């Protein structure tokens, strides 16, 4: 068996995976090694533990690849149930770290079930969609799908871990691929864009701009011979948007808390007074400010391994976990950061390509889930570290310190690679 797997498995993905994991470890080392320990290795530090996690994840990979491919599809429901139970169990046995009951603690070892819930949800989601009786264009099935995603998402939100909850929103991309009506995507994007635009520019400007766009669209669509331009849906759309846009200030000021608003203020550059902006940056945006500074100081080629003054001096909080990308930025410069961005992009594109070539719907849907989950982590984490998105605490897959994270992304990825390696045998 193993020889077949070795022959059929997608080595490009594996190479990129190994490159990301090892490069990640190099930066965790730099961000966590104390000066006096540079010449002798200590397994009690973060970089030491991460090396053990990496070693164990290679074992995990062998284990995953050894299991029969059909196992994942057949046991998807059971895995999903177990995962829900572990999430529920957190409310009783969970350990509170940094204000979230998100960990099980066994001795000095902690494990974060939310990371593994992504895999279980993906499997269950894929299994449900690939069921011959499921028709995603029907609202009953749409509702059931929402339940499959919504239950773990809700449990995680209650921990509370809003960052991990956000990850579950990506399933809509997968559903869209599997023939979910496009209107959902349009609604989702419209709501997000309207909300942000209203905060930034105010209701009036936003609605005027929207009206201009819609009128322009109408006249362009009218000329097109293939499509019939209908005016009624556009008016309906505009009315809904007006209500939403008008309601936004209420949500922003009454529902959001001050610290949420501060993040928006920083992110959308709402404050004009430079003194106050500086104050906010030092205060609310302290992490982002420090990580941006560290990245900027890297310049083109970076300061070199173990030469980053910000990284070595622990200027960026949580640098070995969520902010690991800033260590890359400082020590490896634009060359390093762009390499990581490009590697991630290639890996995700490769996974989408692999997913598209699957014959079975389960494998394809699951592959899409993997690609989508990696995409949102990639986007939100790096976006936050380089100051494009507000602070949302989710790790950078394969890079950030932590056993649960590394293992869950490894399992997530390699289940798909196993499925992919098995694609010819699917009919047997």
């Amino acid at each position: 068996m193993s020889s077949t797997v070795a022959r059929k498995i997608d080595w490009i993905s594996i190479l990129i995976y190994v490159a990301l994991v090892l490069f990640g470890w190099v930066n965790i080392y730099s961000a966590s090694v104390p000066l006096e320990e540079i010449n002798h290795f200590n397994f009690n530090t973060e970089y030491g533990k991460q090396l053990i996690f990496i070693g164990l994840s290679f074992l995990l990979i062998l284990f995953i690849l050894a299991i029969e491919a059909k196992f994942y599809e057949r046991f998807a429901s059971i895995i999903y149930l177990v995962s829900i139970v572990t999430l529920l169990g957190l409310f009783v046995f969970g350990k509170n770290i940094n204000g979230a009951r998100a960990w099980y603690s066994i001795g000095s070892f902690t494990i974060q079930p939310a990371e593994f819930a992504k895999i279980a949800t993906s499997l269950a989601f894929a299994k449900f969609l690939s069921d011959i009786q499921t028709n995603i264009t029907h609202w009953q099935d749409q509702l059931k799908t929402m339940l499959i995603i919504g239950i773990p998402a809700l449990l995680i939100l209650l921990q509370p871990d809003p960052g991990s909850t956000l990850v579950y929103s990506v399933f809509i991309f997968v559903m869209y691929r599997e023939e979910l009506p496009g209107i959902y995507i349009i609604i989702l994007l419209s709501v997000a864009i309207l909300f942000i635009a209203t905060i930034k520019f105010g209701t009036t400007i936003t609605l005027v701009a929207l009206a201009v766009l819609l009128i322009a669209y109408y006249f362009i669509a009218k000329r097109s011979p293939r499509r019939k331009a209908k005016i009624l849906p556009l008016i309906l759309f505009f009315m809904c948007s007006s209500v939403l846009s008008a309601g936004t200030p209420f949500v922003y000021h009454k529902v959001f808390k001050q610290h949420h608003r501060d993040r928006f203020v920083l992110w959308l550059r709402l404050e004009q007074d430079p003194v106050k902006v500086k104050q906010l940056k030092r205060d609310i945006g302290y992490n982002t400010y420090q990580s941006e500074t560290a990245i900027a100081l890297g310049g083109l080629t970076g300061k070199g391994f173990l030469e980053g003054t910000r990284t070595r001096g622990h200027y960026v909080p949580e640098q070995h976990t969520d902010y690991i990308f800033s260590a890359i930025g400082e020590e490896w410069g634009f060359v390093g950061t762009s390499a990581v961005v490009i590697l991630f992009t290639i890996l995700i594109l490769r996974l989408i390509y692999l997913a598209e070539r699957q014959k079975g719907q389960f494998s394809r849907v699951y592959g899409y889930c993997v690609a989508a989950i990696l995409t949102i982590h990639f986007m939100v984490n790096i976006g936050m570290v380089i100051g494009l998105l507000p602070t949302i605490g989710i790790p950078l897959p394969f890079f950030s310190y932590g056993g649960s994270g590394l293992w869950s992304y490894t399992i997530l990825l390699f289940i798909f690679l196993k499925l992919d390696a098995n694609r010819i045998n699917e009919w047997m």
Partner: protein
Amino acid sequence: MRRVFLSAFVIFIALIMLSRLLYLQLLDEEISYSFLDDNAIDAKYHYPERGYIYDRKGKLIVSNAPAYDIMVIPRKVTKLDTLEFCQLLDITQEEFEHKMQKAITYSPRLPSVIVQQLSKKEYAAIQEKMRKYPGFYVQKRMLREYQTKSGANVLGYISEVNEWEAGNKKGYQQGELIGRSGVEKVYENELRGKKGVNYIQKDIYNRVMGPFKNGRYDTLPTPGKDLKITIDKELEAYGEQLMVNKRGGIVAIEPKTGEILALVSAPYYDPALLVGRKRSKNYNKLALDTIAKPLYDRGLLAEYPPGSPFKLINGLIALEEGVINEKTKVTCYHGYHYGRNGFMACHCPSGTVNNLKSGITRSCNAYFSNAYRKIIEKYPTPAEGMQVWSDYVKSFGLGNYLHNDLATGKRGYIPDSSFYNRSYGRNRWFATNTISNAIGQGEVLTTPIQLANVAAIIANRGFYYTPHIIKEIDNQPITDENFTKPKYTNIAPENYEKIIEGMFEVYNNSEIGTARRTRIAGINIGGKTGTAENFAIIEGKRYQLKDHSIFIAFAPIENPQIVVAVFVENGYWGSTYAAPIASLMIEKFIRGEISRTDLEKRMLNSSLQDEYDKALNPEQLSDKKE
């Protein structure tokens, strides 16, 4: 569409990230890439020892001595017997609490000063007990140490840079020292050397992590250069002794080089007062003494009408212009009549007939008024004559800065035709309007060092080197052409001989010489006494004070080694104080010892304090000339 949506989305995200990174890492100007601006890097400076200062004979004047600051890192302070510790440091408990509070406010993790600049002696007593007080330690630094008690005004002092300088002066930072006056100020760059730097990497808590890049950018300090100055340490000290209880200045110059041998300003103070723990207290005391003004360098800054010594210059100009010769005789009628009703008094008995030599010896006002008038009236208009006269006088280095290497100085004033045109109107004045210039009164103003330079010109018979104070820098003799090239006056050397004959008589004519009582056997001195009128305005009323006593001299006449200008405030006749002091200075310099101990004793014991106190009690002053 559905198949490529996620792919397109990922590529879109990646492109946005790359452009953001491109901006952040390559284009953002706000964040500098220089490691010097990186606040994770701390520059630790090592200060070189400031250069020593030696006198012209190679005797050490200024060196350095270690001083010890008691420092504290508040976080490391554990149990502490405050009372005992305060006794040890010799400070009050309130002071200690105050300092500690300041230190904690500044930073609990970084060192602050608790007690500044303990001397070696004070430190020795504390040293071995320091280990009992965790969190406190001793930091050594170098302070100036003086091997002399005199010449404070020449040497100057140093102090920490102020906030403005730390921010704006290149190469200076908070806590560094800078020369404030005298040699310390002028030769700051040479004495200071170049500090060395170690770049140290710090973590977020400001704790040192180690050298940045293994010290690749570190530099070693370059020690300051030693200076040899032209001052004669002993002569300087002797000059100060002679000026005890008097106010005024002495300037001694070596005429053949322009080197300043002594530059005394009285009242004087011990330079050590401006070093160490008591510095600012002492400085305030000196700076706030607005009556005696010890910080005011009278040798360089006091602008006064020069009085009779100025007659020498008028004599020289008259000779050069050919309006008189050494045989020209003028009869003095106990004064000089000019114009319709003008009269300038003179102390010569009425009917005295003076030639040039006796005119100088007697310091006859009539003789030089006549000579001056002839100079001006030689030309068609007084304005032209005045311009010629003014140009001659200015060639003696008067009326302008000397452009030398002293930290301070004044221009003095020499009037020219435009000055009188302004005050009287064009062509509405005559030689007689300006007749006071003949005897060095009126509009003419000079400083003692300028007068000393005039004496040097006469001693050299027509040229001078700009008086300067630097002799060698780092054992290399100076090469600055401003100090090593002679500057010539517009007057022929033979005319100087005629004037010098008169100056010789001032000492050696036993009947009429104004300084005949202070001659030194075996040394031929040429000199000229002077008095300068001065006034004080007290509560709006003008009082005449006792004249300033002025004297210039050079010796020996055949081969001049020293010129001296002495000026004693309110010392009355030039012969009372200034002439004896000048002759003692000359003897001290040439012979190294004093034979006329009675004269010396009189100078050392005399005091003008009563005279000075009168200015504080105006009722004791007459409002007319005494």
